[in-house]
């Protein structure tokens, strides 16, 4: 129809040629040495033929299958949830599978020996079952699926990492699986996967027509569509596709998000086209990655899991193509649900809780025998120097992340936006990585500077790349996601090498507060305090920005400039907080939703409530991290997810949202 459609063919052709070329370059030299007889019926003594027939060829096939499955799965997720950030990871399939494997490794190893696939698959489906339980109450409304998926995913992810920290040695292999490895020993996984994927793909094809109608919202019901049924069926198919893939090769998460977006940017405008092009893109992208990787491995001997590297190639592709996407589209899922509006006076109650938690975190501890004790006045003196910095640091970091989360969710009008999504946290993590690996014995100051520089670099890149299209749209989000995925891929690749220096990073990434010193805590505290007077000023602009740029412009707001200010503020807050609690905290995403769900709907009350909630969660996490596994410590960043997720879960399951949705027969 439009000229955009033409863009599709040359790009796809180029990708096909590239992946075919790489495959040929990788396999041909060895293939040409083998004749067909040796390959078809290799004898065990013939090592070259065995490797080719039972490892390299099945690896090529399973890569193609998994790439295609993830591309299709992502397309379905994005269509059902009407959100370009939706992907198999969104709904917790991978987190569930990972958690199941970790738990089985530790507690029921016999189960893994019997069938690792089935353990992963049932873990994934159990996680999704929980999400469906939540989403079903809201007739599978996109926002409910997204929130439920994120909560469950975060919770299980944090649980897995906690297990991994507690049982480092038993679970070392989990990192490799978690980063997605395509290595094959025979054809069985491929042959198992093929029929499963074929059946689910056919089911997806059957759903194509009703799925298009989902774009019409309530009008779709007028056309006789059972909306909830179609959403549930499509999600089930998408989950199955992702689940089969995960159980076969582990987590190759980024493809599910990137392939549909790349397909769309290439001009696949209609859903039917996307359902064909996205799997193609996924398969090609994974093949290119895997073949490149195999050549690298052969040349250097370094072992890298494919899943991690996929993001290294896919992220730049998404980065370049994101600007080709259509300008900002309205998000009807822009804001989280409000339980019941409450007066701002209730902020005082939250404040009181914070004070109580902060006091507890200062005075409560455990003695040498492990008994719980409470130190007061003079007895407290010697502990203050230890406990106060980390308590203040956790409090400040939680508040800052929560505020940054509110800002980003309102600015981009997407409930899935958060500091982690924009890559700022990943940027500081990357700064640390560079410092740890390339500087001789970096001291604390150098680490801090490097982390801040990393965050600044990511923020700068983001600003430059979205300068033309504006900040309020999906491009900014997708660009941030691409950056974050790229950096996190580098990090997890490094972690997967098992380098001892990587373990240091692991501890930091889980968000431990136990190394926080007085200087750091002071800086964070001062920044958090300095942020307070800025909030009312920013809140008014944000309130308008969250109604859309057209509205904001019409009330005389300089949209580009205030967007920039908000983004920079959020970036600064995130960088400061990341230094203390690591890049994977849950607070920036969830505290805004908890605040809204509690009834703080307007911008300023939401900012204030989110800051308080973020601080409460973080301080509680710090307190528990210090005490429950005494004398060892658990990272506060992880525990914040384990504490915050159930809170939001309960809030989601409380009745009260339904009345905002039309009652339907």
């Amino acid at each position, binding site marked *: 129809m439009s000229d955009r459609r033409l863009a599709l063919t040359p790009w796809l052709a180029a990708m096909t040629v590239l992946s075919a070329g790489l495959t040929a370059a990788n396999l041909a030299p060895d293939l040409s040495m083998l004749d067909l007889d040796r390959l078809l019926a290799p004898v065990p003594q013939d090592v070259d033929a065995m490797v080719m027939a039972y490892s390299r060829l099945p690896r090529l096939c399973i890569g193609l299958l998994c790439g295609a499955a993830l591309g299709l799965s992502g397309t379905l997720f994005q269509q059902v949830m009407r959100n370009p950030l939706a992907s198999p990871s969104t709904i917790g399939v991978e987190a569930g599978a990972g958690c199941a494997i970790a738990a089985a490794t530790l507690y029921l190893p016999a189960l893994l020996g019997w069938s690792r696939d089935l353990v992963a698959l049932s873990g994934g489906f159990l996680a999704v079952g929980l999400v469906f339980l939540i989403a079903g109450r809201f007739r599978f409304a996109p926002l409910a699926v997204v929130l439920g998926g994120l909560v469950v995913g975060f919770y299980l992810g944090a649980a897995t990492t906690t297990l991994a920290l507690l049982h480092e040695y038993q679970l070392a292999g989990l990192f490799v699986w978690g980063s997605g490895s395509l290595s094959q020993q025979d054809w069985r996984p491929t042959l198992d996967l093929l029929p499963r994927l074929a059946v689910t793909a056919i089911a997806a094809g059957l759903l194509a027509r009703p799925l298009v109608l989902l774009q019409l919202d309530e009008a779709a019901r007028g056309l*006789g*569509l059972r909306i909830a049924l179609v959403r549930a069926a499509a999600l089930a198919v998408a989950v199955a596709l992702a689940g089969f893939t995960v159980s076969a090769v582990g987590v190759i998460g980024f493809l599910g998000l990137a392939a549909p977006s790349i397909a769309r940017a290439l001009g696949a405008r209609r859903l039917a086209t996307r359902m064909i092009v996205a799997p193609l893109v996924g398969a090609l992208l994974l093949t290119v990655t895997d073949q490149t990787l195999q050549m690298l491995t052969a040349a250097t001997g370094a072992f890298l899991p494919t899943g991690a590297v996929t993001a290294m190639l896919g992220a730049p592709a998404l980065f370049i193509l994101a600007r080709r996407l259509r300008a900002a589209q309205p998000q009807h899922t822009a804001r989280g649900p409000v339980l019941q509006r409450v007066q701002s006076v209730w902020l005082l109650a939250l404040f009181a809780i914070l004070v109580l938690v902060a006091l507890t975190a200062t005075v409560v501890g455990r003695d040498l025998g492990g008994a719980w004790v409470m130190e007061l006045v003079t007895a407290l003196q010697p502990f203050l120097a230890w406990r106060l910095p980390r308590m203040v640091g956790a409090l400040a970091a939680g508040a800052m992340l929560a505020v940054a989360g509110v800002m980003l969710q309102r600015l981009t009008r997407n409930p899935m936006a958060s500091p982690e999504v924009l890559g700022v946290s990943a940027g500081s993590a990357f700064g640390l990585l560079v410092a740890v690996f390339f500087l001789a014995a970096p001291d604390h100051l150098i680490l801090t500077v490097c982390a801040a520089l990393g965050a600044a670099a990511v923020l700068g890149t983001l600003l430059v790349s979205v300068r033309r299209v504006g900040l309020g749209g999906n491009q900014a989000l997708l660009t941030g996601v691409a950056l974050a995925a790229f950096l996190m891929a580098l990090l997890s690749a490094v972690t997967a090498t098992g380098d001892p220096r990587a373990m240091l990073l692991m501890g930091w990434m889980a968000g431990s507060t136990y190394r926080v010193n007085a200087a750091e805590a002071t800086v964070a505290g001062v920044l958090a305090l300095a942020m307070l007077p800025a909030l009312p000023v920013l809140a008014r602009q944000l309130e308008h920005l969250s109604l859309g740029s057209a509205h904001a412009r019409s009330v005389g707001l300089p949209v580009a400039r205030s967007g920039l200010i908000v983004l920079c503020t959020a970036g600064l807050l995130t960088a400061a907080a990341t230094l203390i609690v690591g890049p994977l905290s849950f607070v920036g995403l969830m505290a805004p939703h908890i605040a809204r769900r509690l009834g703080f709907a307007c911008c300023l009350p939401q900012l204030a409530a989110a800051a308080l909630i973020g601080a409460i969660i973080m301080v509680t996490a710090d307190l528990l991290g210090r005490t429950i596994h005494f004398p060892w410590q658990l990272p506060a960043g992880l525990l914040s997810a384990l504490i915050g997720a159930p809170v939001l879960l309960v809030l989601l399951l409380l009745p009260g949202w339904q009345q905002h949705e039309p009652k339907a027969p």
Partner: protein
Amino acid sequence: MTAPAFSLRGVDLRIGDRLVLHPLTLDLPAGQVTGLLGHNGSGKSTLMKILARQMKPDSGEIDLFGTPLATHAPRRLARSLAYLPQHAPDTDGLTVRELAALGRYPWHGPFGRVSDLDRQKTESALAMTNLMTFADRQVDTLSGGERQRAFLAMLMAQDAECLLLDEPISALDVAQQIDVMSFVRRQAMEHGRSVVVILHDLNIAARFCDRLVVLSHGRVAGQGAPDDLIHPDRLETLYGVPMGIFAHPTTGWPVTYVL
């Protein structure tokens, strides 16, 4: 008068503590254009959503052409009942023709073959709404009036005997308003379709509707032919502003104005 298209008995709806619709008992005639009027918040859109089965009433019964509305299977209902919501959804890259073709879903369903009849109905819907020249344009690149017509085309392709239109002309200029309303009227006059349309403009309502139903605070405040209903006293009680009426100098239709 023939059997009514809709027949409501004691239909009410409560949202939270508020009774949005008091028990309504009402017949809406078949083969005619019924205008649904009322102040903002009077329950017009809610009533229409209930008629379209987008919402379920708390109690009461509704018959569509003599059979209970609740008993129809979704697609069976969509074949006889087409509903245009007040706010057009984001169409995300669909072309006008593709949008219109979506109106055939109730007929071919998720798995049925798209027949020549489906294609033919889509094309004639585009022709009816004068959209042939725009057929391959993307809906989100069109002007407000054209976009409204694109959704009307989808409704036409749906080929239902009963049309429910929620403020179909609120965003249109005068010429387009007349255009759309004449089109709607022809659907009733020439094709015998039953139309229920929510309007705000009393003069348009008086000119294009066979019958008016006026809602006020969730109750029926009056119903009848436009000539009987459009009276200065009644209008004042309905809208709370004093209004006058004169006869159109050439056609004699009642024309209202705010005093």
